[in-house]
């Protein structure tokens, strides 16, 4: 299979008034065509930051190093105009909070028109309405609602509109940043159905960012587990669930009574994330790790290849 997007040595820092936050360190992963990669981790572990970096949407106080290669070009070094042409057309994103992601004073159709015109100014209104209707229907929204304002939709319906906007121009990569977190359980299920259908019918890669291992099991092909800004384990879904290597992954999966877990269960692992402003030497998980060794406190573990899988842990080094 062909690689669609490849992330190498990605590190991201936020410069704050009271210090630098090392949000992501040395992340490596790639997504093939038609593949779904899931980035899993607790809130604050850098997974959303990684997702936003793929579209160069980081705030101005963030600094990203490394490379994000799309179509042979590094997104991180692109000019504003270059990345503008990629956003929405080649790579699109669905945000966590559908309630605030649509402009409250624009009709739904105007959101589509804006998207289409940003990439091709010659399209006429009839064609634009066709594209918009098509995308809306594919996401489970009636095309009749094109003239409605966002406040006339429920949260779940707004998220469907957001998905429709993300797929309208048939991009090759969609970043879904916790698309169901702020929705209630029934609606979550419906939104995941929409995403799964996309996978079947459209020819695109999905990068699904979530803390919900249940969702991961449903749709992902590959999983990158993140902890405190680092990818600690990177494997295909089957192997990860059958034989988790990293102690963090093991604890994550153990804390799942059945396959459905919500945000709360992740905190069953005792301890909390280290302060990302001054990270101590050694493994970032060592204070919460049940299998901690001496070396974990002294040296940062490298990424270790184990049976074709990648894990960042001294147990295997």
């Amino acid at each position, binding site marked *: 299979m062909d690689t669609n997007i490849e992330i190498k040595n990605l590190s991201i820092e936020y410069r704050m008034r009271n210090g630098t936050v090392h949000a992501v360190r040395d992340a490596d992963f790639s997504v093939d065509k038609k593949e779904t990669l899931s980035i899993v981790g607790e809130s604050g572990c850098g997974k959303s930051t990684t997702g936003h970096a793929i579209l160069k*949407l980081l705030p101005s106080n963030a600094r990203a190093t490394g490379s994000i290669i799309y179509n042979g070009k590094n997104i991180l070094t692109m000019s504003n105009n270059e990345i*503008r*042409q990629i956003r929405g057309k080649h790579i*699109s994103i669905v945000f966590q909070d559908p309630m*605030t*992601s649509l402009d*409250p004073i624009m009709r739904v159709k105007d959101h589509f028109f804006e*998207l289409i015109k*940003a990439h091709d100014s010659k399209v006429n209104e009839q064609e634009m309405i066709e594209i918009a209707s098509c995308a809306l229907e594919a996401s489970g929204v009636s095309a009749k609602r094109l003239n409605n*304002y966002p406040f006339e939709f429920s949260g779940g319906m707004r998220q469907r509109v957001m998905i429709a906007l993300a797929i309208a121009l048939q991009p090759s990569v969609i970043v879904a940043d916790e698309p169901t977190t702020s929705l209630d359980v029934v609606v979550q299920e419906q939104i995941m159905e929409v995403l799964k259908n996309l996978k079947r019918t459209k020819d695109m890669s999905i990068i699904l960012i979530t803390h919900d291992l249940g969702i991961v099991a449903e749709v992902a092909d590959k999983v990158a587990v993140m902890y405190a800004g680092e990818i600690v384990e990177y494997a295909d879904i089957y192997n990860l669930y059958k034989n988790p290597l990293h102690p963090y992954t093991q604890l994550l999966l153990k804390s799942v009574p059945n396959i459905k877990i919500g945000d709360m269960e992740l905190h069953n692992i005792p301890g909390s994330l280290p302060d990302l402003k001054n990270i101590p030497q050694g493994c970032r998980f060592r204070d919460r790790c049940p299998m901690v060794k001496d070396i974990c406190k002294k040296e940062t573990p490298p990424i270790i290849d184990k049976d074709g899988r990648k894990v960042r842990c001294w147990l295997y080094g």
Partner: protein
Amino acid sequence: MKLKTYILTRILLSIPMILIILTIVFFVLRVLPGNPVLAMLGPKAPPEIIHAMEHQMGLDKPIIVQYFIYLSHIAVGNFGTSTYTSLPVLQELVQKFPATFELTFYSMIIAVSIGIFFGSYAAYNFGKPADILARVYSIFVYSFPVFWFGIMLQLIFGVWLHWLPVSGRSSPFMIPNHIYTGIYSIDALLNGQFDIFVDAVRHLILPSVTLGVVISSIFVRMVRSNVLLALSSQYVIAARARGESERKILFKHALKNAMPPILTIMGLQFALLLAGAILTETTFSWPGIGNYLITRISYRDFPAIQGAIVFFAFFVAFISILVDIINAWIDPRIRY
């Protein structure tokens, strides 16, 4: 709710507000110490004349009766007769109003343009020199007394450079042949009298720049903070993620969403603009209602004073209704 229904409701809701202001004006002008008749005729006037005058003005009736007479007269547009010119006050006000309207209108355009462009430019360049300049500008210009700034402009552009006239609405004999609106700059154009148009605009520049720049200090600040708020919202990031250009994000999303609060504040500041207009009109001898009010105060012409203040009250109420309607038109959520 349809826009029409909204407008109607809004007008009805402003009636109590106008009533309260009218009551306060009545209280101030009739109940406060300072007998208007005595003030007009002087303390040495014979008592018979004072009584006759009081009777003529209805001041010998009980205060509550006077109050209802006052309200009923205003309701039918009877603002009384000037004791100085013996003309109906309303007629004088209507004649003076176009000058005030012209001045406030052009000042508002200047203030709004500076406010929107400078304010959103500053917000867009948050923390950069342009932003700091905007903050310094708004805090400095806010502390300019309108009349002082006006006098400075008169001094620089009128006295030193001789570029522009320092007072009045027009040069002698430079009045449009036919008056349609009373707004000279428009009437001259409608008549096709280009020289008179230029003359009117030359007279307008200093007063409207004076008032416009001083008011713009508040607008720059308001626009900046509201656009800043809108720029940090999720739908702006979402629009950026769809490949929208930064310029369009600023104008189509941030500025448009920031508009309702900005307009509301601008509507509130209209009161300040009118207050500034009185000072500007006095500074530039601009023959509007503000100038009329101040002149008539010195002549102790009480019906005229009362009429001018009531007129300002209606003007303020009208503008606040107008602002709410524009807001409802921009933001569909308000209507529902």
